[in-house]
């Protein structure tokens, strides 16, 4: 899939309009606990556009969408221009990762790269916004802006993208359901639900005891940061675990394919067959099987090689002349020739 420039531009602008409206909506409904940041699930939109249409379309959606959102929210269309660029990068980078390095999301590795790309995009986007602010705009103050603006912006975008982009890609069938993707999706889903539920419950439970607004905000950040750290650690652990199970399976599948194509040397299987678990046993049985098939194939090849068609040419000539030199044969040949000529 390689859309033309016109298509990229049109798709980028069309989704930018949607993204701008959603931004305006979420700016109206700010989070009660932290008035500066808004929960922005719509960040998944430019990311998904970047992946599904083209990285540049994602960039346009993020950038132009943020301009539109700021304009209709009354912030001024270009006042926070550094954040436009940040949004553009968030739409651009995940698409770039998928376009350049993954192509098809059907393995744990690809899924991990996708999610890594999303988190990286958020870090790069927010980082760029901060750098541009320091250089040109001078609105942020350090270290005060860090917990009140920079970190929340990064966390909310990263968490939303991390959760929602895979959902969109699933609906768009860009994630192919394989054993690997099913497993990692399931574990990731469980992880997200349990961590968010726990964090939410704790925040809720302590809400009444909090006396000051600042304590409430601080509590919220602690919960958010811990949740995200847990999420990241859990996700990495899940990837490692799933690959431990599915890598050998993929190795076995590759080995089966090799055997099917007549290649019986299975160096890729050595690691698997050294395992002491069920997969190791499967691999060892497979190796034995391939060995037997190879043996049978060799025997057959030998049989064909040995298959000699031995014809005693002298005896053949003698037998032939005994037949063709008879009177009967000569007459027969004449008659046959005659009716063939007719």
């Amino acid at each position, binding site marked *: 899939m390689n859309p033309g420039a016109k298509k990229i531009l049109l798709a980028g602008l069309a989704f930018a309009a949607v993204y701008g409206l959603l931004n305006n909506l979420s700016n109206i409904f700010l989070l009660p606990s932290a008035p500066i940041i808004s929960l922005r699930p719509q960040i998944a939109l430019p990311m998904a556009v970047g992946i599904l249409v083209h990285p540049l379309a994602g960039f346009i959606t993020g950038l132009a969408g943020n301009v539109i959102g700021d304009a209709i929210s009354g912030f001024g269309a270009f006042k926070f221009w550094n954040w436009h660029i940040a949004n553009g990068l968030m739409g651009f980078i995940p698409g770039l990762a998928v376009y350049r390095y993954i192509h098809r999301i059907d393995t744990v590795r690809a899924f991990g790269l996708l999610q890594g790309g999303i988190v990286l995009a958020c870090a790069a986007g927010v980082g760029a916004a901060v750098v541009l602010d320091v250089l040109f705009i001078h609105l942020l103050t350090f270290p005060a802006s860090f917990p009140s603006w920079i970190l929340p912006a990064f966390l909310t975008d990263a968490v939303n993208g991390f959760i929602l982009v895979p959902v969109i890609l699933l609906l768009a069938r860009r994630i192919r359901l394989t054993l690997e993707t099913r497993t990692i999706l399931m574990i990731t889903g469980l992880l997200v639900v349990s961590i968010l539920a726990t964090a939410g419950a704790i925040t809720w439970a302590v809400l009444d005891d909090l006396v000051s607004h600042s304590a409430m905000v601080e509590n919220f950040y602690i919960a958010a940061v811990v949740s995200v750290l847990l999420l990241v650690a859990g996700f990495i652990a899940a990837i490692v675990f799933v690959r431990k199970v599915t890598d050998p399976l993929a190795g076995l599948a590759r080995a089966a394919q090799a055997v099917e194509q007549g290649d019986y040397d299975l160096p890729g299987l050595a690691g698997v067959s050294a395992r002491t678990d069920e997969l190791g046993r499967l691999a060892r049985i497979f190796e034995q099987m391939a060995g037997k098939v190879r043996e049978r194939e060799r025997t057959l090849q030998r*049989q*064909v090689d040995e*298959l000699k068609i031995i014809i005693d040419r002298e005896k053949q000539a003698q037998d032939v002349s005994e037949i063709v030199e008879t009177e009967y044969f000569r007459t*027969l*040949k004449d*008659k046959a020739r005659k*009716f063939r000529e007719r």
Partner: protein
Amino acid sequence: MPKIIAIHSFRGGTGKSNTTANLACLLARQGRRVGVVDTDIQSPGIHVLFNLDPKDTPHTLNDFLWGKCDIGRAVYDVSRVLGPEEREKLFLIPSSIRTGDIARVLHYGYDINLLKEGYRKAIEQFALDYLFIDTHPGLNEETLMSIAIADILLILLRPDQQDYQGTAVTVEVSRQLEVPRMFLIVNKVPAALPGDALAAKVTAAYACDVAGVLPHADEMMALGSSGLFCLTHPDAVLSRILEDILRRITA
């Protein structure tokens, strides 16, 4: 132009009758009008494959050969093997299985011109596109006649040292008889042997095209000539190779 296709093999039991019957049947199913002649006067057999009871064949090739009847009377419509409603697609000229009839033809022999004329008439009368000749194995006067008459000759052999030498003689004799087109067919090949390699070896040994390599099929054995393999097992490898052979020889 109607074509006469003779099937021959130096040794017996190579699968001539079964191959003939199946090829004829496949051609008939493609919409051609096909005749089959059983010239195996000494040991007729192909009528079994077409489910034709000798009791229902008052006239046979033998009667024609000694002038007792027109060839047309010895032609029987056996299209029913293709389906209960089928007519006028597949015809058989059987040989007599009565020992007296057999002995008589063998004793007096017959003339190639008479036989050829009979084939011509049968082809004309029944508007045949193809006439298959099933033969007795070996090179005797009658089989030489069938070879001499054929437009296309198919020589069957098994991958067996016993078949190789005789096949070499047959190929050479057929060449001297100036058969227009000649093909070898290797039959009863162990399924595990790679057909391509075998075909290459046979082609090289006889300097003659191989029309196909037919695997030994247990289902064919099990059928025991009680039916036509290409009808009972249309999707089997053997049936597909038979179709390939037809494509090659009728091209």
